[in-house]
């Protein structure tokens, strides 16, 4: 199963410049854990001290914010894209 995690420019200094990271994860939580295991320096930027996704980091599964799905438990299927957006702007 191939899932793509899309890395915004701001995170790429932690992913050796890579804009995309592939994973075989079956949930969003697994995908994030897989990502931070590969790039440990990214860990503290993804989760806070309590292990929660940071308040200013938005995680999307394809086009939808995971908070409208099943949060980190949202299941992944082949071809899904997980998108990280630091500090949504707008408004």
């Amino acid at each position, binding site marked *: 199963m191939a899932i793509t995690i899309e890395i*915004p*420019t*701001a995170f790429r200094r932690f992913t050796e410049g890579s804009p995309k990271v592939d994973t075989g994860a079956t949930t969003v939580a697994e995908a994030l854990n897989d990502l931070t295991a590969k790039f440990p320096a990214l860990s503290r*930027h993804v989760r806070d001290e309590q292990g929660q996704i*940071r*308040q*200013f*980091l*938005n995680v*999307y599964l394809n*086009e939808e*914010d995971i*908070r*409208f799905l099943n949060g980190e438990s949202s299941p992944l299927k082949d071809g899904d894209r997980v*998108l990280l*957006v*630091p*500090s*949504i*702007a*707008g*408004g």
Partner: protein
Amino acid sequence: MKEIYFLRCRECGKTFPNQPQSYCEECFAPLEVSYDYEALRQTTSREAVSRRAFNMWRYAEFLPLPQGFTASQPIGGTPLVKSRKLGLHLGVKNLFFKNDAVCFPSLSFKDRVVATALAAARRFGFETIGCSSTGNLANAVAAQGAQQGFDTCVFIPADLEAAKILNTAVYGARIVRINGNYDHVNRLCTQIADKFRWGLVNVNLRPYYAEGSKTHGYEIAEQLGWELPDNVVVPMAGGSLIGKIAKAFAELAHLGWVEPKQVKFFGAQATGCSPIADAVKRELPRFTPQKPNTIARSLAIGNPADGPFALRLIRESGGWAEDISDPEIIDSIKLLAQTEGIFAETAGGVTAGVAAKLIQQGRIGNDETTVVCITGNGLKTTDAIAAHFPATEVIEPKLDAFEALLQEQLKDSIQV
């Protein structure tokens, strides 16, 4: 000369040189513009400001404007209207409306933020500008973009009010309609700003853009005779304006231009999109994003970027947040028009209606000075209220016909 403003992270406090960037590279929280206030104290004074033309540029030193900047349009400088009838109706003495429904050039407070954003866009060398918008911002970007010769491209939810789309199209802006709500549009724009070298006013230029809102606050203080009000009622979409009014008041107090005061900040939302009001009322530590469903389209942001800061400000200031339903919004638009002669858009209906609710709840006191911020013009959202005003009867151009009509109407009113 060294610049007196720079970027600063709102969470970790790290500072950055001026650049088109909206978030901190360390903790990914939003950046905002900060100033060397001691330098600012040397460069301007209340008396100097008071001698200038009454528009937002009279507060130029408080804005992140590049050296040598010259304004091309008189933006802001809107009326602060003391309520004559609505305050009486609600039982409060000192009720004011800050009326940005008549802001130049595009009839909403977004003209202020676009003004500072485009100064930054020019400074950073962008040729194409744009925004994600619920309507008013697109109008303002299109109008000022045209006047200043930018290539303009705006992104909007596909089902926006027809008048708001037309009020953007007329200026020649490229309009990209997105199949989704504002939060989808906004997320896409974040990705676009990451990939294209475009100046998206409320994305990569957001720190500079947001500062323009402070002028709404400076004007309130100055129009109250260089005094701060007791309460401010502010509509909340992304949650930025409420914080910038607070920043404006804090800056004036810091410089000694007004007496410091604990102003209470009240947030207004539509029930159909009320993530911040919901968190205030349920005392949640974080807001929960919502899928918007309200006629107040300009407030329909379910994942407000400045939601965490608005929540904190409301709590720390001793204020509150409330929301009203769509029928209540319509009633409030009518009430504001029929008592004060101000035709506000749906967001203004929300703010006026929430202000009334807060007064009825006793959260706003009878003797206190309260400013209600009206941020957009009713001519932009006529679709929302058109059905409430059916066409009236047509008569022949004859005096008899008029007198008959009058008789008929008098009879109707007596029956009522």
